[in-house]
């Protein structure tokens, strides 16, 4: 029996279930306790679990992520929250030069099962608070990077991440916390989703739209728009950015022969670039048009609403891109 719950509640359920299941699981982060979490994900947890397991930390991103990694080395299962992914830059040395390296560097004798929860997103937050660096993390061997779009994935990934033995960058989205979606009832057992694999969420035959996190909803919206005009779009939610499931995209492209990637990060060197590069390698002969990438304008994100609106991709830009790749009639190769 599934119920409709919000992305936020899905995360809360996952945290609670894992904390109840395993004493070693604990939370640390800035304002996750007394304040209730900057995005209210851990509200009430301090009262429920106490200071030992819900640890408000100083504003020390590098220190707290490093301490979480160390605690994980020592046998605990820390889930550390970084208020936003913009601040993860301060901790990135601990994430990339330490968490991602330990297991290899010490020949498998040490591991760092730490989950780093953080929020990307925007909303007139200005140039330093509106970024999303998933592409950076997806570049790094030794990390697992997930970016759930749905409440179900949010819960299932978080539970799996907290039980796994690798460092996981768990990237949420500030504009998705209120989204509601179907999630299995806890009664029906643990919802543990493997940390890999893209999913075809809408079948189509004319063009494939690929995205993740909030971008996935733009793709879905665009697919509905396109349907009105008789264009059948297949929509793929990548869900996990490392390892990246290219096979599923290639499968789809072999059917639709057209691909559009959608992301909220800056276009150059975004994850869409990797998808496009990999797909043209593996499905070259099936592409009837260049792969199009929809991303943010390559500009720091301004505060003013009218300007900010222009920065990020929206449904219409995706529709336009899809029509663009379909409109193109092939010229025989040079």
């Amino acid at each position: 029996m599934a119920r409709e719950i919000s992305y936020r509640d899905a995360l809360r359920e996952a945290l609670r279930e894992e904390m109840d299941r395993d004493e070693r699981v604990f939370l640390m982060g800035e304002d996750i306790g007394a304040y209730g979490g900057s995005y209210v994900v851990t509200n009430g947890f301090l009262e429920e679990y106490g200071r030992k397991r819900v640890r408000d930390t100083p504003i020390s991103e590098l220190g707290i992520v490093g301490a979480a990694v160390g605690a994980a080395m020592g046998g605990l299962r820390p889930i550390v929250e970084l208020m936003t992914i913009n601040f993860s830059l301060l901790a990135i040395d601990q994430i990339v030069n330490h968490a991602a390296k330990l297991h290899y560097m010490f020949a498998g004798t040490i591991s760092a099962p730490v989950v780093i929860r953080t929020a990307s997103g925007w909303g007139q937050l200005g140039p330093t608070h509106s970024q999303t660096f998933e592409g950076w993390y997806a570049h790094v061997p030794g990390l697992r990077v997930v970016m759930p779009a749905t409440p179900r994935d949010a819960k299932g990934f978080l539970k799996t991440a907290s039980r796994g033995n690798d460092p996981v960058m768990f990237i949420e989205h500030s504009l998705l916390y209120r989204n509601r979606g179907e999630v299995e009832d806890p009664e029906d057992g643990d919802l543990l989703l493997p940390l890999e694999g893209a999913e075809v969420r809408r079948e189509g035959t004319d063009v494939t739209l690929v995205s993740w996190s909030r971008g996935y909803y733009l793709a879905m919206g665009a697919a509905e728009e396109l349907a009105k005009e008789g264009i059948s779009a297949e929509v793929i939610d990548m869900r996990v950015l490392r390892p990246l499931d290219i096979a599923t995209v290639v499968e789809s492209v072999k059917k639709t022969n057209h691909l559009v990637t959608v992301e909220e990060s800056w276009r150059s060197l975004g994850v869409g670039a990797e998808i496009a590069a990999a797909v043209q390698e593996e499905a070259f002969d099936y592409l009837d048009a260049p792969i199009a990438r929809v991303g943010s304008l390559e500009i720091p994100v301004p505060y003013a609403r009218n300007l900010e609106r222009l920065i990020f991709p929206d449904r219409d830009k995706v529709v336009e891109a899809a029509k663009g790749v379909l409109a193109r009639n092939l010229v025989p190769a040079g």
Partner: protein
Amino acid sequence: MTSSGGSRIKELALEKDDLIDLYRQMALIRAFEEHAEEQYARGRIAGFLHVYIGEEATGVGVVSAMQERDHLITHYRDHGYALARGVTPEAAMAELFGKATGVVHGRGGSMHFSDVTKNFWGGYAIVGGLIPLAAGLALASQYQEQDAVVVCVFGDGATNTGAFHEAANLASVWKLPVIFLVENNLYGMGTAVEYVSAVNDMSRKAIAYDIASARVDGQDVLAVREAAQAALEHCRSGNGPFLLESLTYRFRGHSMADPEAYRSKEEVNRYRKDDPIPLFRNKLLSDGVATQEEFDQIDAEVLKQVEQAVEFAEQSPVPDPSTIADFILADSGAVH
């Protein structure tokens, strides 16, 4: 935090105009912030809004002690400093509204006011991030022998960042003319100092860097001004950095989103008794510096100013979309 500024009026040899001006600035900031909150509630302002209500005496006292050539750089809670440094309420409010007439043309919003013509190097939103920048500005002043001191404003929470540590050490080693002004308002967002800082006394953090320091009652504008003057003098004389801790309190939530579950109404009300504005008004009244009528008039004037600022912000145009890509790089295209 009881005030003892009145007695100091003579020592500070302040003219009536100066005293009235300090009051006016605090009143202006208060009125500005209250209107900002109201406009935020109305949806005309969005994103993060951190108001300075209750802490005005620190900003006004410190800025009043600075020379024009001195530099100011602050964290995101920057409205009070911008106004004290001379940014107009119009340009400030228009920025909150995201208008082209805003102090940074709607690019930055609340957290990123700046006005280099007034040596105000801006508000920054990465906690601690501005502290190394301040050390650098101080290096530029020292290197170019400009005799200018940098005042770097941040909170108790920021002292726990590595950026503070690295910048404080560097500033001390190079004897840079920078004042680390720590606004200790007892909380970093929703987290009380005692839960996250090994020492509650921020000035104690200066010891590890061999930096001179002092604590001051941040609700007493004259005490702050006096302490700031001493700190500025220290830096200007080539004695290296100074850490000034201002004991203050945030009367409102951290930002407009704050449910304030982490502190009690009683606590807030207790601290509200130390509201720097009535404290100072009463002092000036009891010292016979000014009359109630004069204060009523000032209050009316600043209220009008702010209402006009709101009007101005509302009437102002949004930024021209065609300018969205301006300012990404200083050198357009190739660099020769």
